[in-house]
């Protein structure tokens, strides 16, 4: 356990209880003036905070692993097409209401998203084949992503009812509002398991530092590494999309912020990125809750993209000015 990880865990330990107090109703822990304070804390805010940790942690770890695997600081967990396929699954769940009236939307939507993510993982493993080359695999993943995106647009345009349409479009924007414990049970196992798999892939990602040939010469089995990436990214991103919709930029930005604080080996980046992603999402979700906005609260996915896009631009400009391409900011 490095000092960076311990610092991040300490920050999370402080931020988590504080985040529970903030919201449309502020709760003073010493003089709980609000009547149903404990219900708000336990049934609304705690599951929401735990979800932020799971989703943010998963996206952070997946982003770090993807950048390590593609040896590219601009890689993002969405590249493999797992997130778009999960979103497609969620959109398709619109029809279950029409076909199976007794289906509970609180379960069907995440379930369909998980099936979408699982399908993407299966397709990716079929594409991956035995050789385990990075370039073909990545291109195939990007094609899968754009295909899923097109099918999703098609499904949205054919939505069974205008209400369902507006609901799904809002859902896709990504948020953690009004989530409950059952969402936690959907997201947490996948996120934790996925982060563990990605941690195990760290050795192989380190070997890739000098390219695929050297990685093979160091005893890494490229097909196995690819399988670990598919499972790890699939579980973290799939379960994240299933409960929170599409939340961008965490997977891209967080590894960048964390990398200069590590020795820059991909294996050393995965856990701190998971912790920092969890922290970022926890704080961002808290801000969304607090910021006054007509007609409800700011969507988390929008808020993060609002922060993330300028960050990305600044990164590109720095790269053009000749700074190291892997996010050195010292």
């Amino acid at each position, binding site marked *: 356990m490095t000092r960076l990880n311990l610092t991040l865990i300490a920050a999370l330990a402080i931020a988590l209880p504080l985040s529970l107090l903030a919201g449309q109703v502020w709760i003073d822990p010493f003089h709980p003036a609000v009547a149903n304070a404990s219900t708000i804390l336990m049934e609304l805010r705690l599951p929401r905070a735990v979800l932020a940790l799971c989703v943010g942690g998963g996206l952070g770890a997946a982003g770090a692993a993807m950048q390590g695997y593609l040896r590219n600081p601009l890689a993002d967990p969405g590249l493999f097409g797992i997130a778009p396929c999960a979103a497609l699954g969620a959109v398709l769940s619109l029809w279950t209401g029409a076909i199976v009236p007794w289906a509970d939307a609180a379960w069907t939507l995440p379930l369909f998203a998980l099936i979408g993510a699982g399908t993407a993982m299966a397709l990716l493993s079929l594409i991956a084949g035995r050789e385990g080359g990075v370039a073909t695999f990545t291109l195939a993943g990007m094609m899968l992503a754009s295909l899923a995106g097109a099918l999703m647009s098609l499904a949205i345009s054919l939505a069974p009812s205008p209400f369902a349409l507006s609901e799904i479009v809002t859902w896709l924007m990504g948020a953690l509002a009004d989530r409950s414990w059952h969402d936690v049970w959907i997201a947490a196992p996948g996120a934790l398991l996925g982060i563990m798999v990605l941690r195990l892939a760290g050795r192989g990602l380190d070997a890739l530092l*000098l390219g695929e040939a050297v990685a093979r*010469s160091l005893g*890494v089995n490229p097909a196995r590494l690819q399988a670990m990436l598919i499972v790890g990214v699939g579980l973290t991103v799939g379960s994240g999309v299933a409960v929170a919709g599409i939340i961008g930029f965490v997977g891209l930005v967080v590894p960048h912020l964390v990398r200069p604080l590590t020795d*820059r*080996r991909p294996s050393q980046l995965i856990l701190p990125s998971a912790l920092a992603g969890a922290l970022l999402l926890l704080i961002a979700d808290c801000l969304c809750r607090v910021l006054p906005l007509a007609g409800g609260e700011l969507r988390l996915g929008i808020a993060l993209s609002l922060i993330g896009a300028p960050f990305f631009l600044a990164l590109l400009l720095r790269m053009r000015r000749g700074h*190291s391409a892997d996010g050195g900011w010292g």
Partner: protein
Amino acid sequence: MLAACNLTVPKRLAGVSLELRTGEVTAICGPNGAGKSTLLACLAGLLDGGVDAVSIGGTALDDLHPEERARLLGYLPQSPEVAWDVSVETLISIGRLPWRGAPAGETAEAIERAIIALDLVALRQRPVSQLSGGERARVLLARVLAGEPRWLLADEPLANLDLAHAATLMARFKAEACTGRGVVVVLHDLAAAMNHADRVVVLHQGQVFADGAPQAALSEAVLAQVWGVPARWLGEPGGRALSL
């Protein structure tokens, strides 16, 4: 002993048979496209097609666990791109990956030995992006040495190096061979092969054209037939230069 038996890779190698010995520096020479890098990759167990035909100490590379193979065969590709701007010491530590589960002390010692062997003590904390070409070549070789492989397979390690750095690297290869390692180097610089190698294998159109002591394998007749140029060796043995 590292041996290739009738090694064939479509369009690259046509039935190459070789027996390489430890304790000597073997140079693989040949014109562009002769299959030198392919042969080296096959010897390192990196090409699926060639693996059955290559054996180490009588065991086919295919039958070895990848990590066991990695501990026996160190592979230095032609100036690979380093993906992340790690420090010299971190990059060298990558060479220890096949030794999973080795005691931490042993790992640190191996890294230290590699750093000292290539005179990198002053550079150990330097990010690799700030190294000169010669320093970089030394660091990349140190990465392979840190893995303490029985065999050192290097693909054109002297490319883009100035005279002094090339000499340092060749001296290091010879020193490693003297400690009982097998060293196999793909070389474009025929003078370096002539002066420093113990044995030269000349590849031509995917086949072994000549194999033996440098004077014989790189004789003027071979140069004329394989490279198609009338060249003459000048100078004394050990300090020869090629004149066209």
